[in-house]
């Protein structure tokens, strides 16, 4: 019947062999082309281009404040929600977006890869009244040049199920101290990204001061290894690592986990579902005693923005006092705009979220991109690739 014996495996080997040969030639003589298109700041905001393409965190671009923006400026907003900072960087590489609400563990990478342009803050009138301790920070200003507009800030939460965890914990030791965490073996929910190494480092900064950790994102070999050891020990107690919010919500709702690190978004969503979750009280700014890792987000403009005027109008709009108050309350974070505190629906919102207390924010360590050069001139810190590889080895 058959005339020829099909042999896909040999064909595949031939193809791979051919490709391999071609590739060795290729890879050997490939030149590293350095793209040095330094971004140009806009000089003047002109007429809107009619549309705007954004990348944002869930809850940052909502109809409550995009509809009035569209009416006012004629810029039609389309938004792509991203789940992680890595995803944001990846999406920005496509060059199809005008701007992004980047956290501090994405901003430096975006700037280094020339994916974003400097922002001329004089074209953003509302910038004047942004909280001073959010301006000119290492995650939004590079070599003295502003690269974005602060959006808001907050701390990662310790959340627990009020029925299962008593008394209310006030320390991350419930997740990290083996003696205490063992009580919740299989019920702990930890964040599934390399940046979670900083949470372990922060815990060590407080509980093992002799390691000399200053900034949990700037770790030398010894400090880094101590954090990795702690996380490897923690692994046996972890019920689930979460990376998308929906996964953690279903785990808490289904009773699969009872205590974990989380964001405001999941906390409020679970409360709404009637799950008896609790977090450190607002009076403590949602902070356990060690402090917490957190975020300070920045709107950045793409170096390939097709609608730069609309993007500038958006960056001004999002820190308009009324809008920024709305955004902050919707998400559950401290506003970036000083004047927003007069417009919040809950008159105590800003004091509950410590928006106006710089001393409080000293205990919140905003996400940063780990780099080898961490300011001591020795280039001996672990960089982002080390963090990613270590994270893979922690999960095993």
């Amino acid at each position, binding site marked *: 019947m*058959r005339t020829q*014996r*099909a*042999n*896909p*495996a040999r064909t*595949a*080997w031939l*193809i*791979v062999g051919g*490709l*391999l040969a*071609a*590739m*060795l030639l*290729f*890879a*050997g003589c*490939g*030149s*590293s*082309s350095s793209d040095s298109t330094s971004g140009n700041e806009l000089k003047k905001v002109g007429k809107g281009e009619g549309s705007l393409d954004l990348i944002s965190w869930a809850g940052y671009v909502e109809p409550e404040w995009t509809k009035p923006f569209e009416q006012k400026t004629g810029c039609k907003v389309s938004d792509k929600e991203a789940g992680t900072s*890595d*995803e944001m*960087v*990846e999406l920005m590489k496509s060059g199809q977006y005008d701007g992004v609400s980047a956290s501090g563990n994405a901003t*430096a*990478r975006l700037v*280094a*890869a*020339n994916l974003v342009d400097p922002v001329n803050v004089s074209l953003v009138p509302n910038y004047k009244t942004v909280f001073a301790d959010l301006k000119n920070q290492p995650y939004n200003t590079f070599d003295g040049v502003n690269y974005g507009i602060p959006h808001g800030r907050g701390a990662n939460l310790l959340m627990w199920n009020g029925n299962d965890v008593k008394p209310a914990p006030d320390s991350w030791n419930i997740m990290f101290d083996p003696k205490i965490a063992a009580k919740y073996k*299989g019920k702990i929910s930890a964040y599934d990204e*390399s940046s979670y190494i900083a949470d372990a480092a922060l815990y060590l900064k407080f509980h093992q001061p002799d390691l000399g950790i200053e900034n949990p994102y700037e770790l030398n070999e010894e400090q880094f290894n101590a954090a990795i050891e702690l996380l490897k020990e923690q692994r046996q107690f*972890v*019920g*689930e*690592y979460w*990376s998308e919010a*929906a*996964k953690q919500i*279903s*785990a808490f709702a*289904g*009773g*699969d986990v009872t205590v974990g690190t989380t964001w405001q978004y999941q906390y409020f969503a679970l409360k709404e579902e009637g799950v008896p979750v609790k977090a450190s009280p607002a009076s403590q700014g949602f902070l356990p005693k060690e402090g917490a890792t957190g975020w300070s987000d920045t709107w950045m403009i793409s170096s390939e923005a097709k609608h730069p005027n609309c993007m500038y109008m958006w960056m001004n709009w999002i820190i308009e006092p009324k809008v920024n108050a709305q955004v902050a309350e919707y998400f559950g974070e401290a506003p970036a705009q000083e004047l927003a505190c007069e417009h919040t629906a809950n008159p105590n919102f800003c004091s509950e979220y410590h928006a106006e207390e710089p001393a409080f924010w000293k205990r919140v360590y905003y996400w940063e*991109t780990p*780099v*080898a050069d961490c300011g001591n001139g020795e280039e001996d810190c672990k*960089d*982002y*690739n080390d963090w*990613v*590889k270590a*994270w*893979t*080895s922690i*999960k*095993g």
Partner: protein
Amino acid sequence: MSSEAVVGRRSAGHRLADLFHGRRRLQVGALLAGPVGWLVIGYLGSLALLLVAAFWSVDPLSGATVKNFTLENFESLVNEPVYRTIVWRTIRTALLVTLTDAVIAFPIAFYMAKLASRRGKALLVVGILLPLWSSYLVKVYAWRTLLSANGAIHWALSPIGLDTPGYGTTAVWLVFSYLWLPYMILPIYAGLERIPDSLISASEDLGASPFTTFRRVILPLSFPAVVAGSIFTFSLTLGDYITPRLVSNDQFIGNVIFSNIANNQPFAAALALVPIVVMIAYLMVARKLGAFEHV
């Protein structure tokens, strides 16, 4: 005027037909130019790019690719034990899922091909295809709910003293086996359909017991179909990263590729070569077992 135009068009068509008439090569070439072009440029081209990228490195801060030849990606792939663990876990799960699906699929396919009425057959085919109509993510999230500590499996098993396996390695095995089952049933069903009933009757006439008939006639003739189905279940498990991420803490090859893709594409590319090599080895074994005899 208009009739002239029609004539003109017709003659253009004729000219084209004349051009192709009797020229086999040209005919085949025109027919295949599109698909083959796509295969070479879109498919093999991207594969080649992937292979090339595996020999480059990155600038640690910007994540930009540095195009200098290096073997460091492969070195860390081989030297760090965690990647061996992950590769082995992925292959082991893929084999286990394949075996499970084959064992479940064979009786179903046999019933469909040889025993069911025409109506029953149609119902079964629809039943097997039905899950393919809903989104992959919906199915995995549905399994999350089923497997949850207070979910349906817990509820159904607790009266007899058992409990849900919860999220973990067992859950991954269950969900994969569920997801890829149709891809195993359909090839086996097609293979069994091709076995003439007369062969089975002949075997019986010659005094073979049903078990002997199965062992000596049906199994050897349908085995290539099982191997063909296993290519689907094996390769789909090998490449998946969403199911392990949603129902366990286990890392598969795909998960490590995913976590490196944003900042270290060359390393992700080197990792992506692993399933390719595994798959080629698998295809070679499949060929030895006769999976392509009827292609």
